């Protein structure tokens, strides 16, 4: 592990914030409709495109990237495994089943009800996963993601089956493949809720850090271990369902980002979480812009661009063979 002194770290932080700002600024001007700074102020249509589409889109990408990076980091501490994140342990798929359910049984209910029910399902799938791995007493860190991916695949198959029967495949595809081309003002605001939870996670970071002690040591030292795990799970489920319901899931983001951050900064959440959020936002924004650029005038979903890059990263980490996780 490479530890940086306080000064270099602040400088690096400043550099990355600047990088994110530059990307955000560039993101405002990339897209099918050509915008220039002057036209935004002079042309009414141009300013409308800017305010209704480009600004919300850029914000949504930054929030989604930040939240997923941070939630990935949290999941890895909760499950004590560096390969855990909402798509590799079935949470996102559970959320999708919940969204399908409310869509079929109670389509008129407001969006926040859909999201709350979906978080309930996300929480259920988390509990299911917990009870499976608790029974197995895993001693090999590779097994958790392995079982998690298959668990996700089975939940995903159930979701596909329901969606197929009720002719909702298109909805399911939208939820499971994160895409920001549909984000417009008035239809994405729920994602700010996920941002609020992310802030809450950061605020609780010192308490959540205690999860690193492990259950036995933690409880012996008087840490309310189960309560902490439960709170963390609720926050994971809620923010996952808000992201999935508004912009869709981005696989591997929560896996890649926290692992890079941890390599440099270690396990202290208070220190690593802001970095996970920052780097997650930068990476996802970069992927989204790449997707807009590559097949102009069409678009590639950001999740697809990230899926290719993140998949390569995942395989590389596994192949290189970290000694012990």
């Amino acid at each position, binding site marked *: 592990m490479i530890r940086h002194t306080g000064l270099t770290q602040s400088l690096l932080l400043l550099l990355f914030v600047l990088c994110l700002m530059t990307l955000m600024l560039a993101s405002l001007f990339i897209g099918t409709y050509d915008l220039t700074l002057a036209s935004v102020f002079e042309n009414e249509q141009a300013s409308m495109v800017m305010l209704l589409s480009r600004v919300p889109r850029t914000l949504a990408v930054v929030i989604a990237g930040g939240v997923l990076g941070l939630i990935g980091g949290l999941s890895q501490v909760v499950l004590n495994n560096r*390969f855990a994140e909402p798509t590799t342990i079935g949470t996102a798929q559970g959320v999708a089943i919940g969204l399908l359910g409310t869509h079929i049984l109670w389509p008129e209910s407001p969006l926040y009800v859909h999201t709350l029910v979906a978080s309930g399902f996300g929480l259920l799938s988390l509990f299911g996963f917990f009870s*499976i791995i608790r029974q*197995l007493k*895993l001693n*090999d860190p*590779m*097994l958790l*993601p*392995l*079982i998690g*991916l*298959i*668990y996700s*695949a*089975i939940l995903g*198959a159930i979701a596909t*089956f329901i969606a197929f029967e009720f002719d909702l495949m298109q909805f399911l595809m939208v939820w499971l493949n994160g895409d920001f081309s549909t984000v417009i003002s008035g239809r994405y605001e729920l994602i700010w809720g996920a941002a609020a939870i992310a802030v809450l996670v950061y605020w609780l970071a010192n308490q959540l850090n205690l999860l690193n002690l492990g259950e036995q040591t933690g409880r012996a030292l008087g840490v309310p271990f189960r309560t902490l795990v439960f709170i963390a799970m609720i926050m994971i489920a809620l923010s996952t369902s808000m992201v999935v319901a508004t912009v869709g899931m981005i*696989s591997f983001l929560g896996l890649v980002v926290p692992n890079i951050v941890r390599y440099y900064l270690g396990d202290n959440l208070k220190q690593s979480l802001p970095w996970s959020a920052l780097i997650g936002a930068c990476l996802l924004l970069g992927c989204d812009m790449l997707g807009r650029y*590559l*097949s102009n005038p*069409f678009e*590639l979903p950001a999740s*697809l*661009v990230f*899926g*290719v890059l993140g*998949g*390569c990263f*995942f*395989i590389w980490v*596994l*192949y290189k*063979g970290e000694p012990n996780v």
Partner: protein
Amino acid sequence: MSKHALTMIIAIWIVSSLLFLLLGSGGDLDFVWRFRVNKWLALNFVGVSVALATFLFQTVSQSRVLTPAIMGLDSVFLLFNVLLIGILGGAEYAKISGSIKFFLQVVLMMLFAVAVFGLLVRRFSMDISRLLLIGIALGLLIQSLVEFFARLITPEDFSLFQGIAFAQFNRVQTELLGVVAGVLLFVILMLWRIYPAIDIYRLGRNSAINLGIPYIKMTTNLLMLVAILVSASTALVGPIFFFGLLITAIVFALFPTARSGSFMIMAAFIGAISLVGGQAIFEHVLGLASTLSVVIEFIGGLVFFMLLLKSRKSN
């Protein structure tokens, strides 16, 4: 495995074949000949090639939960086709004859299987769970790549590609039957020659080398056979992910001590029976032509999960 079991299994195969060919045909043999025989052949070929491919792959990887499809070999087929469509354009692609595409595909899949699987299996033979995880990640990555390139081609080309990507048991590509039959015959002859060596190979790397098996060469050969077999089945019906696992799990449950020769014969027959019999029931009795693949994949997925959990609990 006793002679008795073999007779039984052949009898079941004949019965399910007759059911598939004759059920609901009203005894009109001309109809059967024109519409059903090709499909029957194709289902048999797919069943046999998937069964053998899975068995050989499990032999090489020394694991009972891995299949070539789980490790992304079926998706390589899609990647190859989407790239070909993207480079040539849909019109040119459609002009190339099926058998030329098939042979190109076989060569590509062989290269991929030997280069990637050979490397991974050799490097991680001590660490099966890591191997499995890399395999699944590789499969996911190749699927993302397929989707990535599918988005870059024109909408007309995309619909052409979709026809290939979602080929099913009731829409087999019958034009390739002759070529696939030849290829299958070749593989079966090869296996006939080397099957005693496979038993020794299954003892594990060190014992096999001690007993005079050229281990690396044989690994390469077996992986090439796997690639040929997977090419054959994907060319006929497109990718099927958990079917092979289902067959080997059934055979292993029925005949836990079978040697590789009899194991392969049983697996081949059970593969053929589940497709022919299953399709007979789903298509002619239930009238649900497209659901067999869904049902097989779902059961196969559950079996995969259970195998994994069981292997954990016994440790």
